[in-house]
């Protein structure tokens, strides 16, 4: 909030006895202004770069100006290339995410629930987690070939760990007092999971899904670097090899849009289950 709008809103609040009026008056422009403020810096930089290239102060060959990027993006979209590569990447991420989430949830729930299984399985998984996942690439190519299987498995590995850790931690930290309420009402097995444990771990689970999705997008690039003829990662490599920086940036923008969209989708789908949360962030 800028200094100007701060003083503008504080003063009438002190004069008028009804503070609700003052906050309503501030809500209107303030709500629009806040995201706009965040855009100020990138837009200024983009405009400055655009002008610099237009006026011949810079060549813009390696760092294409915004107009060229927009143009390239539109070109890729028009020829259908963007759709082809984006959908190839998206389907890999979704497949890898699905496998990773299922495995992470199952293992996380088991090791979180049973102390014995935790002692048995968790050390191994933690050791595997310590391996930089990109280190698996050569092995996965030997094992699963250079086509879809090795890519999806690599993405699944990336998604697995945050989900596994999140679910295990969430199950382990379910409030014992709440579990006892379940016991007092004679819940056990499936009923205990459905009525107590599942809702209790939901907030942490959603966060781990979002973290997993983030890593999924990270790993799809690595997967597509290891040899692909489609995908946004291929567009990156292709742009590098053929000296088309605008194509690289366009692919990066596509990643940003898709990554943000999938994250937003998770938030949107989980929102109805988390309405009860007493969150700091809710104002």
């Amino acid at each position, binding site marked *: 909030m800028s200094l100007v709008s701060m003083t503008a809103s504080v003063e009438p609040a002190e004069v008028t006895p009804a503070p609700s009026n003052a906050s309503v008056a501030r809500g209107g422009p303030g709500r629009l202004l806040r995201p706009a403020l965040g855009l100020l810096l990138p837009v200024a930089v983009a405009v400055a770069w655009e002008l610099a290239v237009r006026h011949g102060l810079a060549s813009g060959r390696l760092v294409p100006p915004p107009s060229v990027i927009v143009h390239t993006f539109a070109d890729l979209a028009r020829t259908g290339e963007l759709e082809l590569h984006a959908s190839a990447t998206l389907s890999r991420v979704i497949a890898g995410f699905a496998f990773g989430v299922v495995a992470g949830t199952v293992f996380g729930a088991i090791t979180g629930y049973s102390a014995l299984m935790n002692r048995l399985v968790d050390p191994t998984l933690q050791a595997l987690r310590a391996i930089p996942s990109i280190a698996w690439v050569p092995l996965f190519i030997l094992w699963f070939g250079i086509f879809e299987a090795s890519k999806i498995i690599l993405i699944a590995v990336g998604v697995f760990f945050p989900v596994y850790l999140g679910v295990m931690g969430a199950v382990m930290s379910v409030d*014992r*007092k*709440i579990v*006892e*309420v379940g*016991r*007092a*009402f*004679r819940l056990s097995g499936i009923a205990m999971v459905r*009525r*107590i444990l599942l*809702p*209790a771990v*939901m907030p942490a689970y959603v966060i781990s899904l979002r973290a997993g999705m983030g890593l999924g997008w990270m790993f799809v690039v690595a997967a597509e670097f290891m040899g692909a003829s489609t995908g946004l990662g291929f567009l990156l490599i292709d742009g590098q090899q053929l000296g088309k920086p605008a194509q690289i940036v366009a692919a990066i923008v596509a990643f940003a849009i898709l990554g943000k969209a999938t994250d937003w989708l998770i938030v949107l789908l989980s929102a109805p*289950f988390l*309405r*009860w*949360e*007493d969150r700091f962030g809710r104002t």
Partner: protein
Amino acid sequence: MLVLDRVGKTYPNGVHALDGISLTVAPGEILVVIGGSGSGKSTMLRAISGLDTPSQGRVVLDGMTITAPHEQIGIIFQEPRLLPWLRVADNVGFGLEQCPTAERNARVARALERVGLTDKARVWPRELSGGQAQRVAILRALVPRPQVLLLDEPFSALDAFTRADLQDHLLDLWADSKPTLIVVTHDVEEAIVLADRIMVMRPHPGRVHEEITCDLPRPRDRQSAAFDFVKRRVLAALDRSLERAVITDDRETKAAAGGGLWW
């Protein structure tokens, strides 16, 4: 009829929390258990509830030995322990899963109306005050109509005014279906407001020290001379119960019994 037959509890680390208590509680009776810390009040209550199993003796309700939580026994804890993801009405109806929806809704609505919380039915637990939340917790335990209701220091986290209010609510609700109430408290006035019988316990190991019958007519006037007389008796008994107690580190016992679950 609830019968405790030489119920004792020694925790795995060797702490002897409860030493062979035998006790009979009549249907509809209100028994208040009072005593210093470490006198095994909560241990006894948890054994009756079936949440913990006694290491000696047994708890018998109408001829059935209680070894696990039972549908005829409800329990209310010091904190409300409402399920934060369920709205107030769903919390109240939590124990009525098997009930047809229409009947469940009717019983929940009636219960909420009974304690003046009808307008809070669709609200999340976090939006309730401490007293309101504890009222909801009482309803949640009472709505399945248990024969025995256990209360483990149910009002000790509340301010004095709210506490008195909830004691009245509890007696009101009790009068509806007359379940057996066993209330653990360390508040002498609360004991006398509620009790038909007050059981004073003594610590290390926990055992019954003295029983005081309390037959003042209800509703009880906290200012009356008769009330004061009983209060003096209970205070004197409490004094005596603690006199010969061996003073050991009480925190150790609590940690042994599972930290936060034990008071």
